[in-house]
C-alpha cells in the first residue's frame, strides 16, 4: 500500500517575512560567549563556522559587524607550515577548513596575507594518482575534497598546480544512473555531493559532461508538497538543501524548475522569531549553518532585495569574486 510521503506540514502561524535584523543580531553574537556549549563543542570545525557567519553577514550587507582585523589575524594564524589550515589552534589541518579559510580571506580581500605558495603546494599535494583528492594525509577520499581543492586553487588563480584532466575523470567516475553524483565511485547520489561535483565541473569548465536535463529533473523532484527541498528521495525537507539543490540547479540553468514561491515560504517558515537565525525545519534550533544557507537560497531565488547576490558555485557574495581570472561556467536553457 502507498506509504504517506515523508514531509512536514507548515503551521499557519509561522513567519512569512524576512527577519533580517534578527538574523544579523543572531550572527553577530556568534562566539561572543566562549563558554557556550554549542560553540565549544564545535571548536573542531571553527573555521567553517566563521565562514558561515561571515558569508551570511556579508550577504546581509553587514560585514562590518565583526572586527575585520581580528578575523583576518585569527584566520592567518591558522595556516600551518604545510600550507593547510586548521579549524582552530590545536587541531590538524584539513582541506575542508583550508577552503573555509581561503573563502574568508577572499571576502576580506586579505588573501595576500598568507603564504599562497605553500597553500597551493598543500592542496596539490592532496591529489592522488587517479585524480581524486584526499582530505588530509590520512587518506579519506571524497568528491567533497575534489570541490574544495579546485575551489581553493581557483580562488587564488592557481588551477595550473593540479592535473585537472585526471581530477575531472575521477569526479565523472562518481556519476550515477540518476545523473547525480556520490562521494566516491559506487556511492549513492546526494544533493550535497551533487553540489560539490556540479560546482567542481563549473570551476573546471566541464559542465557539458553532466546530463543536465536528467540531473535537473532529479533535483527538482527534491521539492516536497511543503515547498521545502530534501537531499535524497524519500527524505525530510531541510533548509540547507534549499542551497545544495538550488545552487546546483542554478549552475545548470534550471533554477526555475522548482516552485519559487513555495520554497521561499518554506525557508521563511524556518526562521526563529525569538532569537533570529534559521533552523533545518520549523520549530528546531537555529544555527549559523542553516542561517547562511537559508539566506543564500533566498538570494538565488531573487525574492529578497535586501540580500546581496550570491555566487552559486562558491557560496560567496558575487561582488567578492571580481578578482577571479576565470569565472565558473554556467549552462543555459
Amino acid at each position, binding site marked *: 500500500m502507498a506509504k504517506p510521503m515523508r514531509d512536514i506540514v507548515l503551521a499557519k502561524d509561522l513567519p512569512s517575512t524576512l527577519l533580517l535584523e534578527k538574523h544579523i543580531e543572531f550572527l553577530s553574537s556568534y562566539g561572543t560567549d566562549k563558554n557556550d556549549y554549542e560553540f565549544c563543542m564545535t571548536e573542531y570545525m571553527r573555521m567553517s563556522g566563521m565562514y558561515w557567519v561571515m558569508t551570511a553577514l556579508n550577504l546581509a550587507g553587514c560585514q562590518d559587524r565583526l572586527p575585520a582585523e581580528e578575523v583576518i589575524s585569527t584566520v592567518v594564524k591558522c595556516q600551518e607550515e604545510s600550507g593547510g589550515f586548521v579549524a582552530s589552534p590545536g587541531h590538524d589541518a584539513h582541506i575542508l577548513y583550508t577552503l573555509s579559510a581561503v573563502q574568508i580571506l577572499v571576502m576580506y580581500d586579505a588573501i595576500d596575507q598568507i603564504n599562497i605558495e605553500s597553500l597551493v603546494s598543500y592542496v596539490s599535494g592532496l591529489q592522488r594518482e587517479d585524480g581524486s583528492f584526499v582530505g588530509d594525509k590520512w587518506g579519506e577520499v571524497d568528491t567533497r575534497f575534489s570541490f574544495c581543492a579546485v575551489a581553493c586553487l581557483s580562488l587564488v588563480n592557481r588551477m595550473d598546480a593540479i592535473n585537472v584532466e585526471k581530477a575531472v575523470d575521477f569526479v565523472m567516475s562518481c556519476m550515477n544512473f540518476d545523473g547525480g553524483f556520490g562521494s566516491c565511485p559506487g556511492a549513492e547520489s*546526494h544533493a550535497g555531493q551533487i553540489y560539490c561535483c556540479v560546482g567542481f565541473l563549473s570551476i573546471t569548465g566541464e559542465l557539458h559532461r553532466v546530463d543536465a536535463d536528467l540531473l535537473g529533473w532529479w533535483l527538482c523532484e527534491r521539492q516536497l508538497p511543503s515547498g521545502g527541498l530534501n*537531499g535524497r528521495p524519500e527524505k525530510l525537507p*531541510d533548509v540547507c538543501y534549499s542551497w545544495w539543490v538550488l545552487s546546483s540547479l542554478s549552475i545548470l540553468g*534550471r533554477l526555475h524548475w522548482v516552485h519559487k514561491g513555495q520554497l521561499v515560504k518554506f525557508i521563511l517558515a524556518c526562521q526563529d522569531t525569538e532569537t533570529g537565525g534559521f533552523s533545518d525545519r520549523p520549530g528546531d534550533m537555529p544555527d549559523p549553518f542553516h542561517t547562511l544557507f537559508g539566506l543564500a537560497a533566498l538570494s538565488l531565488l531573487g525574492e529578497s532585495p535586501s540580500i546581496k547576490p550570491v555566487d552559486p558555485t562558491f557560496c560567496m557574495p558575487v561582488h567578492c569574486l571580481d578578482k577571479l581570472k576565470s569565472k565558473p561556467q554556467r549552462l*543555459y536553457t
Partner: protein
Amino acid sequence: MSYGLRFRDEKNVTHGRLKVKTTKEQEEEKRQKRAQKVKQYRGAFSRIVEKRQSGEKDEEGLQISQQILEMIPDIHTLWNYRREILLHLKEFLSEDELQRRLESERFLTEACLRANPKSYCAWHHRSWSMDLMPRPDWQRELALCNKFLSLDERNFHCWDYRRFVVRRAQVPAQEELNFTDEKIAVNFSNYSCWHYRSKLLPVVQPDPLGVRPVAEAKHKEELELVQNAAFTDPTDQSAWFYQRWLLGRSRPRQAVTRALVSTERCLAALVHPARAPVRLQLLVGDGAEPLAGTWRAADGQACSSVWVFAPSSPLPQPLAGPVRLRLQDDQGHDVDAELCVDADGRGARLCVAPDFGAPLSPALSSVMLEELDACRQLLEFDPDSKWTLLTSALLMQTIDRHAYEAETLLTLDELVELDYQRANYYKDLKSRLLVEYALERQRGDAVDLTGLALTALYHAPLLALVRTLVLDDNHLRRPLPHLSALQCCESLSLDRNELSSLAGWPALPSLVSLSLRDNALSDVGSLAALSCCPRLQSLDLRGNPLAQGDQAELRRNVLAVLPKLATLNGVHV
C-alpha cells in the same frame, strides 16, 4: 561549508533538534551538565595537545582521546592522534598484540557509530584500522553492515563502508545483487538499494551489444521487477527513477552535424561540446594536408559545440576535390564528415538529418509496448498519477516519437496542470520536443519556430547555418547566450516573447536585423549588449516598456549605445 561540508539528511548535532520549552530548574540543570562537559572536553583536549607536542604516543593518549570521541566522534584531530599512536605501536607489538589493539578500535568505532551512525570520521577510522589489522574478519564487517542497514536502510555511509568491505573480501557481485533482492523484497522504497543494483547489474549481466544497461533477458526481468514496485506504490519515487534509467537510450556518438566552408565563414557544429583546443581539421582536396589556421569557440567558452575556423591563408578558390572535416572524439577516434561542395565550387556545407531517437532492437520495443500498456491500465485506475503519466510520455518517445507526437505533447500538458511545482520542467521538456519535431521538418536556410509556446531553446547548435530564424509568439524570458550558435543568422525575430533583459546576449557576426517587438525590455542601457553584433543595422523595439514615451529621445538613447544602427522601429535613423 556544510559542517565543513558534512551532509546529513536527518538527526544529528544541529539537524532535527527540536526547540523545547523548559522550566527554570530544568534549564539550570542542563546548564550545569553542559558546563561540566565543556570543562571535561577542554581539560582532555589540552592534555592531548600537550602530549602530542612532547611526542608521547602511548596508551594514555588512546584513553583520553577515546573519552572525547565517545562524546564527539567528529573531531578528526583525535582520530589522527590515535592513528599516529597505532602506527607507532605497530613497530614493536607482536602480531597478536596488534590484532587485539586494533580489535579495540573496532569496538570504539562501533560505539561511536551506534550513537552517531553518520559520523564521517568514525566510518573512515574503521576502514583505516581494518586495513591495518593483521587478520581482518571481513565477514564480521559484512554482518555489521547488515545490522546497521537494518536500523537505517538509507545510511549512505554504511552502504559505502559495505562496498569497501565487499572489495576487500572480494565478495562476488552476484552475491551483493542477491542481497539487494532481499532488501527490495522487504521494502520497494529503498532508493539506496536500487542505486546499488544500477552498479551491480552491468557487472553481473553486461549487455554484449552495449546498447542497454544490462543484457536483454535480464533487462526484461528487471523492468518487470521495477514495474511491479512502481505499481505497488505509484507515489514512491525510487522505482520510477530506476525505471527511467532502464528505459534510457544510449548517448549518441560524437559527430559533426552542421558545417560550412566559404570564403566568408568556416564553422562546424558538433553533437556534443568539445574542449579547446578542439581536435578538428579541415581538409580540402584528395589526400590533402589539413589547412593551417585556428579554431575558436563561437561562445568563447573553453568547451563548446560550435567552432569557427580562421584559416591562416585564403581558402583555395574554387574548392577543388572533396572537402572534409576530421574530428577526433574523446576516445581518440577520428570521425570524418564530408561536406557537399556547391555547384560553383565557392563553398561547401554539411547538414546532417538530426537523430533525436536512438534505434531499439525489436525485442526491446515489444517490452516497451507492454510497459506502455501497463501504464495505461494503471492510469485508468489512477488518472492523476504523475509518475505513470511521465513514464508513458517517455515510453512513447522511445517507442515511436512520430506516431505518438500529439499524445506525448498532450501528456506533458496534463503534467503541467497536475504537478504544478514542476510545471516549468514539463514546459521545458515539451519545448525541447517541439524544437526537435520542427527541426526534423525544416532544414533550409530559414527556420520558423513561431507560436510553439517555447519556454526554452534547445538544440541551438543545429541552427548554426540558419540565415533567418523566427521565434515569435513564444514564452522565452531567460538570458539567451546559447544563441551564440547562430553564426550565420542575418535576421532574427523574437517578437512577443517575455524578455526583460538582454544580459548575456552573444556576439552574432552575421546579424543584420533583430526584431524584439512586444517584449518586457525596460532599460535602454541594457541594449549595449547588442554592440557585440557588428553588422546589426535594424532593430525593432516597438511594444516594449522602454519604447514608450518620446520617440526622439528613445532614438537618441538607442543610438548612443548602438551608433551603427540604420533603422529603429521600422524608421530610418
